[in-house]
């Protein structure tokens, strides 16, 4: 196997996946309606044609994929277990955070009672595959409506193999009382490749808070390729958090596609504290006027970790506002990439679009590649972009030390202060406090990979779900 990895490349992997799909068609056709099968066929065709991105592809230039391709990944085309009580393996460590908590295990929706629940207010939460069976008209209308499959990459792959994931439907005029928390767990003895597909629809004048935690229960090798489609109807609001604390052997590619209709509002926070290879892609299409979006990101990387945040905001209509703010601290030999693009269409007048990426490099070996882009075709706009890469401010360091704080404490205080701008934007108070304390621990070196996280699972001994059920 070791030898294999040297010569195994994206072409081999692609061919392997094509064979895999063709020889397992029965699983996918049973999980599809006529319309979703068409989408799947289209995605498969696209994947066969374009395959994986290569080095020439601008958006993947700084993230080396070859090392992630293996011929020994396991694929589960059927869930290993359907009924599952998440509380058996861990409790959420976010104090006072009262959420509606659901779980994906290796990409499959896991549940205690029912795969699909309808809350009192009419909100539907549950398994995407079950939703397609029960509410085909809702699912079919939206799935694949925002995710781009006509280009190289992981979205067509996910769409080809999609079977299950999280489905949320908030009807019109509903403010969902509690935040929904989705915990996506990867747990396998062998290397595993999983592809969750999530679909979230927020109705007119409705409001949803969604916390998405990605987590590994062990240090084993895994590759997660998630696609989420989030559709915001008129005057709706989503507060979306993406928190990652994964093992160093885990690779995670998340593609989130937002579609915004008029007067809708997005707050998105991508917080990456640990992970072997992490790529967060956001594609935001503003399809209405008077929309606003704040896309924030924070990454703290050390050792050989790699994180790549890629954001595209496309202003297709006038009078909307978007703001990207990504901040990162990169230590040891870790590397980070930020590539943010704002695209303003020809007639999208009075657009306000801003973009900023600020980084602190703590060592000479740490790297950051930052690429802010603006592409503007309208003439009445207010746009700006900026990127900074620096060390800790030596003036501030001296000021703190001159008051008696030691060098280490001063450094931590400044790094923590640097992250505050993002943390302060978190509007769910218990989550904010918890993330603040996680970041603080992380900066003090008390939180190493998978050591402790929002889920408070004890990872000193790998826990396999199968073992617990046995």
């Amino acid at each position, binding site marked *: 196997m070791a030898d294999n990895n040297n010569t195994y490349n994206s072409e081999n992997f692609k061919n392997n996946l094509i064979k895999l799909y063709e020889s397992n068609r029965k699983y996918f056709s049973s999980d599809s309606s006529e319309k979703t099968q068409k989408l799947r066929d289209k995605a498969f065709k696209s994947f066969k044609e374009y395959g994986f991105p290569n080095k020439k592809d601008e958006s993947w230039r700084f993230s080396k994929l070859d090392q992630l391709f293996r011929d020994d990944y396991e694929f589960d085309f059927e869930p290993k277990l359907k009924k599952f009580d998440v509380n058996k393996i861990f409790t959420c460590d976010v104090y006072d955070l009262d959420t509606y908590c659901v779980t994906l295990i290796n990409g499959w929706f896991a549940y205690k009672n029912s795969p699909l629940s309808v809350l009192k207010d009419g909100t539907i939460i549950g398994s995407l595959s079950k939703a397609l069976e029960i509410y085909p008209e809702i699912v079919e209308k939206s799935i694949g409506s925002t995710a781009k499959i006509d280009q190289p990459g992981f979205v067509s792959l996910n769409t080809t193999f999609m079977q299950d994931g999280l489905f949320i439907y908030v009807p019109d005029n509903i403010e969902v009382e509690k935040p929904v928390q989705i915990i996506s767990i990867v747990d396998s003895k062998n290397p595993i490749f999983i592809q969750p597909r999530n679909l979230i629809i927020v109705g007119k004048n409705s409001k949803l808070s969604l916390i998405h935690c990605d987590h590994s229960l062990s240090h084993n090798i895994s590759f997660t390729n998630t696609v989420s489609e989030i559709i915001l109807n008129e005057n709706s609001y989503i507060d979306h958090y993406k928190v990652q604390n994964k093992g160093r052997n885990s690779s995670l590619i998340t593609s989130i596609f937002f579609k915004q209709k008029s007067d809708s509002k997005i707050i998105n926070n991508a917080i990456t504290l640990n992970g072997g290879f992490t790529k967060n892609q956001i594609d935001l299409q503003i399809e209405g006027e008077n929309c606003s979006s704040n896309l924030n990101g924070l990454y703290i990387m050390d050792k050989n970790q790699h994180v790549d945040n890629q954001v595209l905001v496309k202003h297709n209509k006038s009078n909307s506002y978007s703001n990207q703010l990504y901040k990162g601290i990169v230590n040891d030999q870790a590397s980070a990439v930020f590539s943010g693009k704002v695209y303003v269409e020809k007639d999208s007048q009075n657009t306000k679009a801003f973009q900023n990426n600020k980084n602190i490099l703590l060592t000479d070996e740490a790297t950051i590649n930052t690429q802010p882009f603006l592409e503007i075709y309208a003439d009445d706009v207010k746009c700006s972009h900026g990127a900074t890469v620096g060390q800790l401010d030596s003036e*501030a360091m001296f000021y703190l030390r*001159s*008051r*008696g704080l030691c060098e280490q404490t001063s450094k931590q205080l400044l790094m*923590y202060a640097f992250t*505050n701008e993002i943390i302060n934007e978190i509007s769910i108070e218990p989550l904010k406090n918890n993330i603040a304390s996680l970041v603080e621990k992380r900066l003090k070196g008390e939180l190493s990979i998978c050591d402790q996280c929002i889920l408070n699972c004890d990872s000193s001994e790998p826990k396999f779900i199968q073992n617990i059920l046995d």
Partner: protein
Amino acid sequence: MLSIKNLKVSVEGKPILNGLNLEVAEGEVHAIMGPNGSGKSTFASVIAGRDYFDIKEGEVKYLGKNLLEMSPEMRSKEGIFLGFQYPVEIPGVSMTNFMRAALNEKREHLGLKQLSGAEFIKIMEEKQELVNIQSKLTNRSVNEGFSGGEKKKNEIFQMALLEPKLSVLDETDSGLDIDALKIVANGVNYLKRKDNATILITHYQRLLDYIIPDFVHVLYDGKIVKSGGKELALELEEKGYEWIKEITNKE
């Protein structure tokens, strides 16, 4: 308390201090005056422990210890305080947390027990009153968005909290209107004790109307070229720095 002998310091190869001598004893207030570029701020920074200077020659003894070997934080814990000419803005670090950490570091060094949040707040309120600094400033990030006067008052507030043995106040009067100047001067006077000392670094005589120095030194070209009592400051005000330059260059 402080004994400086033949201190020679350069920055990026350029000599700034050229054999400075100074003796400061407990209970004394010294003023160091001088024209721009004479080395006043470098002197203050060297005492506090900034590291971008090359110490070429000389020694600095503080309470019998070699000051130049001590880290900035150790100097602070041993009782040295620098009032910055340009206090640094540090967004995201709250003034209260910062000062509580600083005070607790010092207390640990002195073998005193750590202050709880409530105990600290009580002390902070007392000191705030002393320097007439409003609580809205301590609730904010360190110096962030403070006006020039607020920043300087904040320095005196920190000095009041840390109760230093030796304070070096670098141009604390610059950019202050007369009311702020009085507040700052009152703070310094109030904190004066028999067992501590203050070095005021200033360009103008104005501050010395409010804080009466025991000694006035004139720094020129990296050396103290003239020392005297408080009347020297008045003479300087009258005759200007050209007078000093003339008599120094003649020698």
